[in-house]
């Protein structure tokens, strides 16, 4: 049962991806992004896709790779500041963009994966984000209704995974990956270390394997650093 989730590489694990689909992509900036899945999605040649991801990568890395090839029709993100290709395509009207506050985005993905269609949040009340959304008062304070998100495919990156799909993330590379793992019709996990079932301590598992349909070992990870800041001592 466990072994049929294991794929040889990203290309095989992405079987079934198609144009016009919605893809959920883990990571914060370039930290904890599913590098191999992104490259394989580019190479698959799918078009007019919607990507849900906190950021949009940089010009030549991360989701920026799919912007260069104009495969993305719409992005749903909280912050896209680091990407000139993005800016050009957005300003010319080629690319659709929906901004979602970061915490709301995280919760929408969590809700999507947890079978919650929508929820009320105080974030964004009285701002542009609230336009067209239902407002309701609880305990004298206003909240807006935000909807859960699911995707046709979800791509996550973890540090260790076993052949059943149990995942352990490392440090701040966890970020959006756990929620995104729960919200895909098909969730593909790429891991730095792929181990046998039973080798991970159940108490340390962050994402239970039930959420993962496909898993493979990443190759040639770049793990690029966006802002290399050091102290002298």
């Amino acid at each position, binding site marked *: 049962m466990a072994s049929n989730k294991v794929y040889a590489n990203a290309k095989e694990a992405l079987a079934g991806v198609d144009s016009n689909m919605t893809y959920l992509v883990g990571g*914060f*900036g*370039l*930290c*904890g992004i599913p590098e191999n899945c992104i490259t394989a999605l580019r190479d698959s040649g799918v078009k007019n896709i919607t990507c849900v991801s*906190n950021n949009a990568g940089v010009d030549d890395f991360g989701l920026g790779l799919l912007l260069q090839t104009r495969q993305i029709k719409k992005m749903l*993100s*909280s*912050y*896209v*500041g*680091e990407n000139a290709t993005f*800016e050009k395509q*957005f*300003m010319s009207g080629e690319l659709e963009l929906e*901004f979602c*506050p*970061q*915490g*709301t*985005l*995280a*919760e929408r*993905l*969590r809700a999507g994966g947890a079978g919650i269609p929508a929820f009320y*949040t*105080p*974030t*964004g*009340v*009285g*701002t*542009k*984000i609230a336009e067209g959304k239902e407002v309701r008062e609880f305990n004298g304070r206003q909240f807006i209704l935000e909807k859960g998100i699911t995707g046709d495919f979800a791509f996550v990156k973890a*540090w260790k995974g076993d052949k059943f799909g149990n995942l352990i*993330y*490392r*440090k*701040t*590379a*966890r*970020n*959006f*990956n*756990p*929620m995104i793992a729960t919200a895909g019709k098909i969730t593909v996990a790429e891991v730095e270390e792929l181990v046998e079932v039973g080798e991970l301590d159940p108490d340390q598992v*962050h994402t239970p394997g039930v959420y993962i349909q496909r898993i493979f070992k990443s190759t040639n990870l770049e*793990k*690029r*650093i*966006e*802002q*290399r*800041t*050091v*102290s*002298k*001592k």
Partner: protein
Amino acid sequence: MPLTREQIAKRISDEVQDGYTVNLGIGIPTLVANYIPSNKTVMLQSENGLLGMGPFPTEDKIDADLINAGKQTITALPGASFFSSADSFAMIRGGHIDLTVLGAMEVDEEGSIANWMVPGKMIKGMGGAMDLVAGARNVIVAMQHTDKEGNSKLRKKCTLPLTGVKCIKKIVSDFGVIEVTDDGFVLKEYAPDMTAEQVVKATEGKIKISPDCKAMSV
């Protein structure tokens, strides 16, 4: 002389109490960490999933898996914890963060803040700012009092699209310390080489001078 960025950060550090959990935004707010005295135990939260953020790493300790919300390489202190973005914003929205410090383009006399978009310019996104102002128990804004032309950024009403409504309690600008009350701005301290009257004159929104208003010690 108006305060420097460092002096604004240093003054805000006085607001940080022992035992606080604090989220510092990008820019001047980040500098606040440099002035928190070592006799105060303070946990810094980074909204990408870290509580207990430490200084930048030395060259040999750089780790691509360990960054802050500004995407800078950082370290984790003893007692730190890592968590998902959903957990991080549960902390923020749920009111578990004592203090948030962030920058602003405008704040108005009702405490509404604008800091995420200028119409007609490329919009980078609000990131976590809307969640932070909606959720933290106390939000302090670090900002310039006026723009380059000398126009007040402490407004009667924000002209830019809002980040949050009626959520700011205190501003530390380069001109002084201003509280936001039900009756508009109240000047508590002014920059050493200025007068209270100069600060009032440079403020568009309704502003009163507090009876105990004094020159800031920097």
